[in-house]
């Protein structure tokens, strides 16, 4: 076995003991997969519809989620959902999430992102049906509870939806400063300012202001740049803060149950 010393003829007990000590801890485990069948749930609530700065508003106004397993390094397998319930804690109103049965899995070799519009197996429409709540009913300050059963495993979770971080622009002495309202339920903000070197790729902050620098000189700056603030709840912040954290906001599965709220305004020309 590679990495393990084999003492065939321990002529000297001292030498044998030394070799055993040296070999301790040298045993190698397989490179891939000891818990590939552990369930994972990904549901993030947000009322606002994401906008791609270059391609405009995305096509589907529905919100999607995924119930799968940890899979392998390069693919993910779907899991069945036997029971699904998301309720607004204040009044017990039920969200109109539906399960889209899928089998097999999908390759995930590219790190360009997984589009749940195409790959998800949970869906919440913009408008709810039969008296149930749609995506348009997601509101800041509300607490939402999750109850889900997959393969006999019960998964529960809860999150508080952050209030919208409404942005205000202040221009003074040729300096443009963006302020946003402190969001109830937000643990951190993700700020994007494509006109700035610090801000082009976005950054996380606990502050509620940003001074526009206009020092990003490369070609990726859009013609009409938008300043964007995303308020993230504590589940998402905990999930993203440490790459060794496997779950946040849920019990019974890996993954995350969280919520976001966002605001965006065009950055005034200099």
């Amino acid at each position, binding site marked *: 076995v590679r*990495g393990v010393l084999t003492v065939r003829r321990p002529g000297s007990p001292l030498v044998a003991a030394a070799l055993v000590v040296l*070999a301790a801890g040298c045993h190698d485990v397989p490179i891939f997969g000891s818990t590939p069948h552990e369930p994972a749930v990904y549901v993030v609530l947000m009322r606002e519809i994401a906008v791609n700065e270059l391609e405009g508003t995305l096509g589907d106004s529905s919100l999607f989620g995924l119930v799968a397993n940890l899979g392998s390094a390069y693919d993910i397998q779907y899991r069945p959902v036997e029971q699904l319930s998301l309720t607004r804690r204040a009044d017990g109103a039920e969200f109109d999430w539906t399960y889209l049965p899928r089998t097999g899995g999908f390759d995930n070799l590219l790190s360009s992102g997984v589009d*749940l519009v195409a790959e998800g197996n949970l869906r919440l429409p913009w408008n709810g049906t039969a008296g149930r709540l749609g995506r348009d009913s997601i509101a800041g300050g509300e607490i939402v509870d999750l109850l889900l059963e997959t393969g006999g495993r019960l998964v529960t979770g809860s999150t508080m939806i952050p209030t919208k971080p409404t942005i205000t622009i202040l221009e003074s002495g040729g300096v443009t400063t963006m302020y946003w309202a402190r969001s109830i339920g937000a643990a951190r903000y993700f700020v994007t300012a494509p006109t700035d070197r610090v801000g082009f790729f976005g950054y996380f902050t606990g502050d509620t202001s940003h001074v526009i620098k206009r020092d990003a000189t490369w070609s990726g700056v859009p013609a009409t740049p938008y300043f964007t603030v995303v308020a993230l709840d504590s589940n998402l912040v905990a999930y993203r803060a440490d790459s*060794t954290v496997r779950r946040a906001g849920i019990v019974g599965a890996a993954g995350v149950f969280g919520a976001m709220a966002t605001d965006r305004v065009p950055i005034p020309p200099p």
Partner: protein
Amino acid sequence: MTLSRPGFFVARLLQALAFLGATAAAAAQGAVVTGTVLDDAGLAVRAARVSLSGSVTIASTDSAGAFRLLATRGEHTIEVRRIGFAVARQGIVVPDAGDPAPLIIRLSVLATALTGVVIPGERTVALGQTVNRATVRNAPPLGEADVMRALPFVPGVNMPNELVPRVNLAGAAGDETAITLDGHPLQFPTHMYGFVGAFNVAALERAELLMHHVPATIDTRLGGTLALHSREAAEQGDGEFVVSVLGASTTLGVPLPAIDGDLLVSSRYSYLAHTIKALGGSGDAEGAEFAWPYYGDLLVRLGHRVGPRWRLETMGYYAHDWFDVSGFPGTIGPSISEAMAGTRLVREGPSSRLTVRLSQDLALATKGQGEGTTIRDSEVKQRATSAEVSLDTRHSAAFASTIGISVDDRRHAARWPYRYSDYDTPAAPSVLKYSGSQRLLAIAGETRWTRGETGQSAVGLRLSTAGTSAYLAPRFRTSWRPAPSLRIEAAYDRRYQFDAQIGDPRASVFPPPTFLLRRPRRMDGIATTVEWAPSLPSGRSLALSVTPFARSYVARTKAIDRGFDTTTVTSMEFERIAARGLGVGVGLTYARSGGASLQVAYTATSVHERDGDAWVRSDWSTPHSASALLTLPFLRTWEFTTSLQQQSGPPLTPIDGQLLVPSAGDPNTFFPLPVFGERNSARLPGLRRMDIAIRRSWAVRGAQVTFALQGVNVLFDRNEFEYELRSYQESIEGGFPPYPKRQGFPFVPSFGLEIRW
């Protein structure tokens, strides 16, 4: 040991030294053996090693070939060794009273000069290893001889990644090796993003690896010190001119009788980019331009006598890497440089040696981020100033001591504007604006005493103060010769290190910044060497050494996982963890006077560190590594050399699956993130590399000309050490050979031409 009242302990240290001095002064008095070593032509042989058989006493000849050796009364055999000469032995009787008459010892030149192994007995450092210029030259090089590439042939040394000449000494971390040149500390001594060492081998006399024991009077890091020594002063003038596929270098040693001094000038320039362009390479497979690498280095040393016993040496060292980015109009390329200026004043007395050293070093690396960069927005700038005074005194035949004081002043700054791609780790800050300074004061002393002909011991203390805290590091070594062919050495060292880096950088990356620590890391280590060198028929030598060692680390630095945090970091904080290392180094050398030699090294290490409640393998864990270097002369002027290196593959954290991480701002878009198992519990396949070289040497008008053809990795081993793990798994499950993200050297043929006079 952390102390709050350094003055008290300084007094205690001096008291201890005085006590040891008084004790040893009472030891038996001996005699002084003097003599001169000459070659066949009657010329003085400098830097020859002179020893008495059955004793640990060693001397080195000066430029006049003279030596001075302390001996006990009675019969001895004196032994003289020098690279390129046959070993000379001569009997001597030390009378009961007075000193014996001066000796004249002649050395005969070997048929093939510079046999190229670490000659048994050549070692001059306790529990360490001396690598000489010939060894470096004999290791089949990647383009040209490189002292850093010769280090894996030393037992106890691992080089987990062959693309980075960054070594782990006795299982220590990669940032725990100090490098000095004639005692002056260096910071970035490599070229081409760490691909080759920034030292012209012709300008070096030897490299000493102080690994298991570092005298208390020498500053070091936790792993040890690679102490490089520049070429010794030329008596009649000498020089070397070397041409290889990488570049050309010239080294000149010039005596300056007008000032009773000598000058060493060594310069090197790489024309690798010109070579590739001349061979038709103008870009990559898609036709894109390269950022062509260039490098050069310069070493100047002026030494002269400023009094009957005083010698002043002034040294300047400069290494620079730059990139031709003319294929990217409007952009500027990275620049990496190191400039060192140092002065050393030495007074050689009849029984004492006073050394005063002053060093100033500036390491500077700048670059932009990515292609199309128009400004250098990333920078690592590290300035180090140090001064040291030390006094070696021989109090009697049996007792000597060294005491020294040093001051180090360091100012480091590093900045990058967003996620630093050179560190593939979530521990690297996204935005760094670091600035730090540090002033260390150290007082150190060591006493050494000889017990008859068979034993020598040394005990030392080093007291380092940083701010208001002081740290005491005791060190001890002893050696014993129970028989003429057997030597046993043992040592205990405590060491402190006041800086740290963010783990090991990837291959071919920008120099990593070094962060200054308020609270140092600590290592306690013990080691024992048993060396057996039997007497063989004339012209043959054999030495076998076994060195088990154990180390314990306290407050070792581990960079904190920063996840997706993009906060600007201005002061680098580390998690402090415990670590341990255990291992054994085995070395075998065999040489014949005709030039044939075999050098074998095997190192087994088990290095672990604390991760929460568990002990996990360290990132550089290499349980087994073995190397062999065989040199065979043939047809009088030809020489064949082959080397084989085999070692465990690098450790790897297994992937249990993958999580999805939501995009900030788009709840329908997620990004994959691997879910890792126990840290470093898996391992990639092992590494193997075989190199060969054929050389022919001949004399032309008093010069020695050597032409060499070399091949690196002649077995075409893939030697993968880094994978993109998703595609790696898919390849394996699809039945295809995985395509590594990074692998070791391909087959690289090259040539070299050396002219020495």
